[in-house]
């Protein structure tokens, strides 16, 4: 009997670990941010009110609770800047995700088709950039893309162009930065989907009259879709909220929600509005996640 109870609790503990993790590192911070987003901005420390305190007692809590409002969210709808920032973030993230997919697919395909002995090396090479700080790698792109940078010097040196290309501080630089930074997140799920695919399926398709190109589109690609979806999610979601890349490479031209949020928080010191911006961003990102989950559940059926 004791043994059975012991197993019961042990099983519970195993399940509780991830829940506890999510509670401490996601759910509680989320409610803190949500609470701040419903508050009013103050020039004080902390810079919002009301501030809930243990000393208030039940009645004081209820009173303060009534002071919370959705005013900040209403305010976000009033200023087109926020809408534009969200829209432009989603647009940039979508285009970057698509570009990343186009670059990553051939890489992953080549890796999956490579002989088994060189695959671990190729996999290492894909992960290798992570060994250098993300920030340093983005700074390196400034050196490459600036008007007197490596890229322009090379192109002018071989005579392709005579005037330096203006790439830095444009949206193109942001695309380049995102595609470069998030490439491994796209390559790895694609590789794992392509690598486990049975090669005889391609032979079967060719045997039944498909050209190699036809076999790719009718068999290889459809079967790699779970990898495509996973890779796109891994790139799209962080790309929407990306701050460092647009800040360092995009200049003032690129409007992205990550920078708007940063400005509200650090320049305007308006924590409640910054929190509201973050909550709306989360809501926007949850939609594709739910969609992805739905697709996965469907394919598992």
């Amino acid at each position, binding site marked *: 009997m004791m043994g059975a109870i012991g197993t019961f609790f042990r099983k519970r503990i195993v399940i509780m670990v991830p829940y506890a993790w999510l509670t401490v590192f996601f759910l509680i911070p989320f409610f803190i941010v949500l609470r701040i987003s419903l508050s009013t901005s103050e020039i004080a420390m902390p810079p919002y009110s009301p501030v809930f305190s243990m000393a208030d007692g039940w009645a004081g809590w209820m009173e303060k609770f009534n002071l919370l409002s959705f005013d900040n969210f209403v305010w976000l709808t009033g200023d087109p800047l926020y809408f534009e920032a969200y829209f432009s973030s989603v647009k940039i993230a979508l285009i970057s995700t698509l570009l990343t997919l186009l670059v990553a697919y051939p890489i992953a395909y080549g890796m999956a088709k490579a002989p088994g002995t060189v695959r671990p090396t190729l996999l290492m090479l894909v992960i290798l950039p992570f060994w250098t700080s993300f920030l340093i790698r983005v700074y390196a792109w400034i050196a490459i893309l600036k008007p007197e940078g490596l890229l322009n010097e090379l192109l002018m040196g071989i005579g392709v162009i005579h005037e330096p290309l203006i790439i830095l501080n444009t949206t193109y630089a942001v695309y380049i930065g995102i595609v470069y930074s998030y490439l491994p997140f796209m390559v790895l799920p694609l590789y794992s989907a392509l690598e486990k695919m049975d090669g*005889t399926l391609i032979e079967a398709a060719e*045997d*039944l009259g498909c*050209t190699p190109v036809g076999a790719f589109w009718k068999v290889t690609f459809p079967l790699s879709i779970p990898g495509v979806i996973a890779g796109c999610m891994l790139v799209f979601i962080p790309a929407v909220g990306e701050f460092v890349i647009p800040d360092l490479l995009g200049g003032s031209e690129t409007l992205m929600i990550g920078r708007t949020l940063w400005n509200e928080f650090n320049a305007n010191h308006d924590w409640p509005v910054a929190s509201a911006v973050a909550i709306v961003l989360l809501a926007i990102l949850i939609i594709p996640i739910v969609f992805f989950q739905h697709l996965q559940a469907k394919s598992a059926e």
Partner: protein
Amino acid sequence: MKSLGSIRRSFAPWSDPNSIPYISIRNVTKKFGDFVAVDNLSLDIYNREFFALLGASGCGKSTLLRMLAGFEQPTSGEIVLDGQNMAGTPPYRRPVNMMFQSYALFPHMTVEKNIAFGLKQDGMPANEIAERVKQMLKLVKLEKFAARKPNQLSGGQRQRVALARAVAKRPKVLLLDEPLGALDKKLREETQFELMDLQQELGLTFVIVTHDQEEAMTMADRIAVMNAGKVIQVATPPEIYEAPNSRFVADFIGDVNIFDGKVTAVTGEFVDIEAEGGVKLRMVSSEPPAVGQNAAAVIRPEKIRVTGEKPAGRANALEGEIWDIGYLGDMTVFRVKLDGGKIVKASSLNAVRAAEDPLTYDQKVWVSFDENAGVVLKD
């Protein structure tokens, strides 16, 4: 079915010098680096034949099949199919289809879509595709499973889908790579006969690769026994079994007793052999070896009788004692140790429920067989 059976019995285009082979494999060699998978192999296969490539794994049979399908190109030599040289023709332009050992069903498509796949590639009109798919589903008795995905089917059902998909395009030749390998024994035996019926019904040429001699013997019109990239013997199942042309074939197909020795006398077609342990044998051979040459007498266990008394009127009778008895139900296998020390395998059908004089362990017995009970192989 009876009339088909009689057609089958008289089906022997390979013995007619005027018949033209449907598939002609001429001096084909396939090398992978230094490894010679198929070694200067020539083979003719006839229209509507059920042809088996039989051999242990690594003998080159699968490589040969893959060359017929077009997945591999011969290093040298040529393959001619229905008068057309197949050199350089990719798999998707060959009038052959293959049934894969793993079935290779497309997991993202329903049974119906799998079967229709090849027809769609040919640009067949949709209504004709639907008609053909229906027909194929009926043929393999899977009408109810049309909308299922492969992972919702049993192994036997998947095998049928793979078969239906491979024959849906009405290929000139159907290539089958170990088609029954993944099925359990009982299902395999049933499916063997279904495959034979299907081949008759569709009138197709089947080339099957198998390592299972029983499978090849049951289904094939002719068998090519392969070893180390070469064909050792091509013949009908009875010929392969009763008249193996080599020690390898004799040993590979079924159980066998091999008496190695020297030819002591040749009188007409009779060959006298003195084998190891002083065993003297008299055998019949249509091409007798010369006196003094090394030769082996090859006799199948079921051709050998084991008796308590010395039998009268049998050319070969050898004395020994029973070493082992294996009772298998339908038959009993004896291992008899001859006085010279050699162990002889003999089997007898248990046609009667209770034998009058059952043989027991350590009993003195005689093993006997006729002159024509086996073949003589020259070494």
